[in-house]
């Protein structure tokens, strides 16, 4: 369903891949990792990835790693994203997990199926000070869903920073005499929808904005209490925000998700000049620049009196606890987050997870939109932790559809609240039971 789609759009972009033990000789290396090929026996690491994540960057990453460590061979296997988590879990149950993979479930971390990487950070001197703090946090539950830190330990290190942001077309703003927004603070949801309606030109087939469902755009505190245990989906704040967003779709200022999915097609439509603004992932810079769009980047809109929030993620490559080659597997993780970051900038143009790398590689390159993106992402903050979140918001998605269809926002969200609370209670009960 829709929320799982977003989970995919976010996580999977992140969940690129993984791997494990392989077919070729599985001998243990004879010396400390990082040495030259002459002093090591050959090692094969199985790396399981999602088909969706098997891109040219991944190929370049593996190629680069094997060139640097000729005694380590990466055996890449791709699975359809929908089956990826199950494949890994089945392999774990069979006692033969891959050496490397991507984190697709928090339970893996909680149950010790993934190795912490804190020792690697220390031993390799990886400087995390310039990493985005929403991914590499130091408190419990910081962005546990898409990040790398969980309950005080680090389980993955990324090669890029994915984030939900707003691309906007500066030329359209100028043509309508609207002052472009600053990267931060964000527009309120009212301002965002009003601006979208002003920018909309139905004759030219231009939507002023595209944003999908509120629950994928607004801070999670719009629908949930700060401890994540109480549903407040029918609070005045939520009711107003949902009403405004539904009105934007009803009035044709933004497409419904049935017509256009901002996560899948947002960058394409924006590149074609068919959108004034789009809330989507900040990963399509090259495409937009190639299309010659004069774009800017700003923070996602927020609901009244709710602290702005920016969803972030990365490629959550990790080392599975069952590996016979933890040292070599960790070498790969270290390579991925150091040289891999640079490779990714060259191959895909994605934003590095480290501002130091962004500066060093001149990632922004004087392009205003990229400069603005770099000003947006430091404002990312920890998310409310809700176990199995996407399975608790089904009623909220349904409520928004009803509101778009003409039902009163208060009524639809009043109806949804007990359902969300019931799902939330169930999710917490399962989580607390461990």
């Amino acid at each position, binding site marked *: 369903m829709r*929320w799982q789609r977003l989970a995919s759009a976010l996580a999977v972009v992140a969940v690129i891949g993984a791997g494990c033990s392989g077919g070729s000789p599985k001998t243990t290396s004879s010396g400390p990792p990082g040495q030259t090929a002459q002093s090591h026996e050959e090692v094969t690491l199985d790396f399981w990835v999602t088909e969706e994540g098997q891109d040219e960057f991944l190929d370049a990453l593996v190629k680069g790693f094997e060139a640097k460590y000729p005694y380590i061979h990466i055996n890449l296997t791709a699975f359809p994203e929908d089956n990826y988590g199950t494949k890994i879990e089945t392999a774990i149950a069979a006692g033969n997990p891959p050496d490397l993979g991507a984190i697709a479930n928090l339970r893996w971390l909680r149950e010790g199926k993934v190795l912490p990487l804190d020792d690697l950070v220390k031993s390799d001197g990886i400087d995390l000070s310039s990493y985005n703090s929403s991914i590499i946090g130091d408190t419990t539950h910081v962005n546990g869903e898409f990040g790398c830190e969980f309950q005080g330990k680090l389980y993955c290190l990324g090669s890029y920073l994915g984030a939900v942001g707003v691309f906007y077309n500066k030329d359209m703003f100028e043509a309508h005499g609207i002052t472009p927004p600053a990267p931060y603070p964000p527009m309120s949801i009212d301002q965002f929808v009003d601006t979208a309606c002003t920018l909309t030109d139905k004759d030219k087939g231009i939507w002023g904005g595209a944003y999908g469902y509120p629950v994928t755009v607004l801070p999670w505190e719009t629908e949930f209490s700060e401890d994540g245990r109480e549903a407040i989906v029918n609070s005045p704040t939520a009711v107003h925000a949902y009403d405004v967003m539904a009105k934007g779709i009803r009035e044709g200022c933004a497409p419904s998700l049935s017509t256009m999915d901002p996560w899948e097609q947002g960058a394409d439509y924006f590149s074609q000049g068919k959108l004034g603004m789009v809330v989507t992932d900040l990963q399509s810079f090259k495409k937009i620049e190639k299309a010659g769009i004069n774009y800017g980047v700003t923070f996602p809109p927020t609901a009244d009196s709710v602290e702005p929030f920016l969803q972030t993620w990365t490629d959550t490559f990790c080392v599975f606890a069952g590996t016979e080659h933890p040292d070599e597997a960790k070498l790969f993780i270290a390579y991925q987050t150091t040289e891999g970051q640079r490779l990714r900038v060259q191959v895909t143009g994605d934003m590095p997870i480290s501002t130091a790398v962004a500066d060093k590689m001149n990632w922004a390159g004087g392009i205003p939109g990229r400069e603005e993106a770099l000003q947006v992402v430091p404002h990312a903050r920890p998310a409310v932790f809700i176990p199995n979140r996407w399975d608790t918001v089904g009623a909220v998605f349904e409520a928004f559809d009803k509101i778009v269809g003409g039902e009163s926002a208060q009524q639809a969200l009043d109806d949804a609240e007990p359902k969300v609370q019931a799902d939330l209670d169930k999710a917490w009960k399962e989580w607390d039971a461990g």
Partner: protein
Amino acid sequence: MRAGDRLCDEVREGGSLITVKARGRRSGIGRLARREERSAYLFLLPWLGGLLAFWIVPILWSIALSGSDWDIISSPHWVGLANFKEMLFDDRHFWLAIRVTLKYMLLSVPLYMVVGLLLSLLLNLKIRGMNVFRTILFIPSVLSGVAVAVLWVALLNPDVGALNEVLRAIGIHNPPRWLASPTWAVPSVVLIGLWGVGGGAIIWLAGLQNIGAQLYEAALLDGAGPWERFRYVTFPMLTPTLLFVLLTSLIDAFQVFDTAFIVSGAQGAVGDSLRFYLLNVWYEGFQNGRLGYASAESWVLVLAAAFVILLIFKTSGRWVYYEYDPERER
């Protein structure tokens, strides 16, 4: 002495039938039969192995799992009837999935049967080119369910879909939002399924063509009109087909997955409105990692479906008419 006489003698002497058979097995023909029997089992072995490994054992295993909290990656713990208790008293999604599935069943089964029957009556007419019409009608049934679902997602798009464009053109300014509307989502899936009703119509057609012409001739001689011929000849003679179509339609309705998965996972419907029972089982098992709970839910479905099917079989004696019924002959 002929072989038959020898057999009779042995029976007369008190040899039982089993004895006779046992003696027969020692004959040349018996050895051949035994060899054939062994060969048959040998040929069947791969299939039996598959049946055992991929059906029987998993089915038995799922019974055991339904009483556990297995999540694949950790060892299962026995929880007794806790899974069943949870689904009955503490799981909104379980009841929601039942409601969605029942709604679909109530809408789709009668509709598909009636439309299939009407189409088959048309297809049974003796006109030129009928085979072409039959082929056209059957084509949607052989298309991939996924492809059909994707096609219909586009057709039912509330904003730019062909169906709503037509509805707007004829003056319906606020047409349904179909898959994007919690109210219309299930009827939309029923509508998608209706496109493949040609498959069912072919079964009805086979039933129609098995009705003897003499029955219609007799009815005509008795002065029966078209309605009377349908009411007193066609329909009673079609009741065995009706039983078959009813059972398969109900089983299909219990098993809705692919269309719902595609239309809710790709484009269109969201939220809880298309949480069909099997989809819910899949979510619990493979998204939430609760294989034990999902197994328990699966068994509830099996028992519910078995109950409905047995009920229909039990009552079928009262409304299904067989032209040749060995039971009645006796």
